[in-house]
C-alpha cells in the first residue's frame, strides 16, 4: 500500500511546529481520513473539527498544501504523491490548538445582520427561478474558507471594519429573497465595509459550494449600495416598500 507523509501543524496560540506523520493511503481516501489515522495510531491528542464527513457541515476547514480546503472533500489521490502534504490551520483566525481555530468572530458579524423580514403579502407565491437565485447563496455551509483567503481579513486584519465574503453572501440571500422587505444597504456600507472589497475573486475560487461570491453576490450588492445612496428614485421606491432588483428588472 502506498504511503503518504503528512506535515501537520501542532501547537497552540503560544506557538508550534510542523510534525511529520506517515500514513498508508487506501483508494478513495480523503485528507480527513489521513488525519483520523494519525489521531488513532500516532497522536491521540491531535485536535481537529469534523462531523459529517460529507462536505455538508462546514467543520473541517484547513489549509492543505497551502490551499484552503475542506479536508473531508479533498481526496489524497488528487494531491501530488511525491511530496509531503502540509496541513495547517486557517491563517486568518487565531489558533486554539493544532487545526482548530477561533471562528467566533464570524458569529459576532452574523449577529449584526437583521434576519428575513417578510413584506406584507397576502399570498406566499414565489417562482422557482427566484428561489434558485437565493438558493445559490443559502447553500453556504459556513466553512469560512472564503473569509480565510480574503486579503482584507487575512493580510490587513480589518475584522473590525469588514464583514467578509461569507456575510456578503448572507446579505445577498436576504436582499434577493423575493419576499424580503428590509433594506440592508446601510449596514453593507457602514458596518460590513463592502467598499473595502476590491473584487479580487479569491473568495470565489476557494468556495467548496461553488457559490459565485463575487459575481453573483458582491457585485450586485455594490450596485445596490450605489443605487440606494446616489439615486433618489431607488431610494424612494425602497421607502415605499418596493424591492427593486436590478437583475429582475433587466430580465
Amino acid at each position, binding site marked *: 500500500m502506498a504511503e503518504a507523509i503528512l506535515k501537520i501543524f501542532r501547537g497552540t496560540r503560544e506557538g508550534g511546529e510542523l510534525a511529520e506523520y506517515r500514513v498508508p493511503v487506501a483508494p*478513495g481516501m480523503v485528507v480527513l481520513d489521513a488525519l483520523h489515522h494519525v489521531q488513532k495510531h500516532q497522536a*491521540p491528542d491531535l485536535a481537529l473539527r469534523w462531523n459529517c464527513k460529507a462536505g455538508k*457541515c*462546514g467543520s473541517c476547514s484547513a489549509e492543505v498544501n497551502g490551499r484552503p480546503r475542506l479536508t473531508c472533500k479533498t481526496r489524497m489521490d488528487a494531491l501530488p504523491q511525491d511530496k509531503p502534504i502540509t496541513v495547517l490551520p486557517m491563517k486568518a483566525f487565531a489558533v*486554539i*490548538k493544532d487545526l482548530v481555530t477561533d471562528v467566533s468572530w464570524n458569529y459576532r458579524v*452574523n449577529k449584526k445582520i437583521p434576519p*428575513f423580514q417578510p413584506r406584507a403579502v397576502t399570498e406566499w407565491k414565489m417562482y422557482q427561478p427566484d428561489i434558485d437565485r437565493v*438558493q445559490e447563496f443559502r447553500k453556504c455551509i459556513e466553512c469560512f474558507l472564503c473569509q480565510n483567503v480574503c486579503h482584507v481579513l487575512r493580510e490587513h486584519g480589518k475584522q473590525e471594519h469588514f464583514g467578509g465574503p461569507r456575510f456578503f453572501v448572507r446579505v445577498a440571500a436576504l436582499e434577493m429573497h423575493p419576499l*424580503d422587505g428590509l433594506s440592508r444597504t446601510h449596514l453593507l456600507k457602514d458596518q460590513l465595509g463592502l467598499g473595502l472589497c476590491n473584487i479580487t475573486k479569491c473568495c470565489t475560487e476557494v468556495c467548496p459550494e461553488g457559490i459565485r461570491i463575487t459575481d453573483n453576490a458582491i457585485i450586485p450588492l455594490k450596485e445596490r449600495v450605489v443605487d440606494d445612496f446616489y439615486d433618489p428614485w431607488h431610494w424612494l421606491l425602497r421607502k415605499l416598500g418596493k424591492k427593486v432588483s436590478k437583475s429582475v428588472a433587466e430580465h
Partner: protein
Amino acid sequence: MDISYHDVLLVGGGGAGLRAAIAAAETNPNLSVAVVSKVYPMRSHTVSAEGGAAGVIKPGDTLDDHAYDTISGGDWLCDQDAVEIFVKEAPEELLRLEHWGCPWSRDPDGRIAVRAFGGMKKMRTWFADDKTGFHLLHTLFQTTLKYNAVTRYDEWFVTRLLVDEGRVQGVVALQLMSGRIQAITAKSVILCTGGCGRVFPFTTNASIKTGDGMALAFQAGTPLKDMEFVQYHPTGLPFTGILITEAARAEGGHLINKNGYRYLQDYNLGTPTPQPVLRNMELGPRDRLSQAFVKEVEKGHTTDTPYGPVVHLDLRHLGEKVINTRLPFVRELCLKYENIDPIKELIPVRPVIHYMMGGVHTDNNGATPLAGLYAAGEVACVSINGANRLGSNSLPELLVFGARAGRAAALAAMEQRTPSEHAISQAQDEKARLEEQFLRKTAGRERVATIRSEMHQAMESGAGIYRNQTSLENAADKLRELRERFRDIGLDDHSLTFNTELLAALELSFMLDVGSAIVESALHRTESRGAHQRTDFAGRDDQNFLAHTLIFRNPDGRIRLEKAPVVITRWPPAERVYGVKPDVKEVAAR
C-alpha cells in the same frame, strides 16, 4: 466553580433545539433561554437531511391519509393521538418556516412543490433543493438571532444533568476551547441531542450522534422507550456509509441484484411498473427494503465488494436532465466519493444504520416522567414513529414537538424556584469526577479506540437487521464487559484546550449505556415488528406486544423493563400492505 443561571436550557442546537429555543422565547420574552451545543449549531446533524419534510398541503391529500401512512409504516406501534397532533401541526410548522425565510422548492404556478417518499400514499414531502435539513437548520438559526433572550454556549459539552428534590435543575458542561467545567442551571431542561447511530460501525450519522441525551436521561433514572427499533436505510454507499437519499428512488431509481433483476418484487412489495408508484416496490418502507437485502445476500444474489455485499441502484434510465436537476447532490456525492457517474453507471448500495425510532420517553408535550426534563427531536420517543419511521417524517417531527416542548418548558419554568444548594454541590462532584477519571489519571490501561471498535463489533453482530436470543445475549455480555473495562480507561491527552480525546471518552461511555439499552430492549421483545426482526420469533404478536418497551436504570445500577400501552384512536391494528398488483391502477408518483 462558575455558575450561570437561566430559565430554560436546551441541550442541542440542531433542528429540535433551535425550534424549541424560539418557542420558549416566544412564549415568554422575559425568560432567559440557553442553547448549549457541543458543536456550532450549524454543524448539527440536521444539516445532512436531504430528501424533505412531510406535511399535507395539496388538494386531494388529507391529514388522515398522512396519519394512516405513518401508523401503518410504524407497524401500529405509534401513539395515534400523537400522530394526529403531528400531521395537523406539521404543515403549520413548515409554513411558519417559509415565513422565516426557508426557500421551499416551487411548482410552476409558484406554490409549494412536493415529492414522493417511501411508504407515503400521496405526494406530500416538501423539499428545498436536495438540502432540506440544511435550509431548515439555517433558517432556524438565523431566526434565533432575533431573540435577545437566547444565549448560546457554542462548543460546550454536557456531561451530566443536575437533579435534586426530584427535578432537573440544570447541567454540568465542559467548554471545549478552555477546558472549563461549570454548572449551567435552569428551571427546565430540554434534551435535543439527536440520535445514536454511532453506536454501530456503519452509519449515515455524523460523528456527534452518540446518544448523549439518551444516556444523560437514562443515568438520571428517566426511562428510554422502544430502543430496540433502529432504522436501516436501504441505500448507503458501501465504503463511506454516505446516504443516497430516498428521493433517488422517488424520482424513479431501481434497485437491482447482481442479475439485473428488480428483486423487491419477490418480497411482497408489489410488482415493477414503468413509472414509480407510491407505496410500491422501491417506494416501500425502509424496514422491508433492508430486510429484503439480507434475504438476497442469503440467496447469493448480491455482489461482493471489499466493503461487503452490495446491490445496485440504477438511475441511468432517468437521463442526464432529471439527474442534474432533481438529484444534483446525489450525482456529486457519487462522483466525489465513489468515482461513479450515475448517469452512466450503477451505484453500489447496502443498508446502513440511519435513524433511532426509540429514545427518551415523553408525552405529547415533550415532558419526560422526571420533573423539569423534556426531550424533542430524534433523542425523544413520543412516539410517532413506532416500529419504523417513514422517511421525511422526522424533520416535521422535530419542528412540531420541538415547538411543543419549548412552550411547555417555558410555562413550567415560570413556576419554578432557583436551583438548590445541593444541585450546585453535585456540579462540584462531577467536576472532581471528570478530573479524577480522565484528566489527572495516568495509569489507565484501556484505550478509547479499542473499546469503541469492540462495541461496534458487538452491536453489528448482535443487534443488526435480524437478531435472535443468542446474538443479543452475546452482545449484552460483551457490552457488560466493556462497561467494566471502561473504568480502566486512560487518556494520552491530559490538556485542557480542545481535548478531543476526552470528548471521545465521554461519548463512548454514553454509547455503552445506549447500546446496552438497545440490546436489552431487543431481548425483551420476543416478536417481530417493523425494524425489529427476531429470527427466533417471526411475526407480529399483538396479543403480547402491542405495547411500548420502557427500560429504566435503578439507582443501584440494575436494569428494569416494563411495557406501556400504545394509544389507539381510530386505526385498529391491521396487516401492513404494500405494493400494487399489475392490473390495479394507482396514482403514479410523477
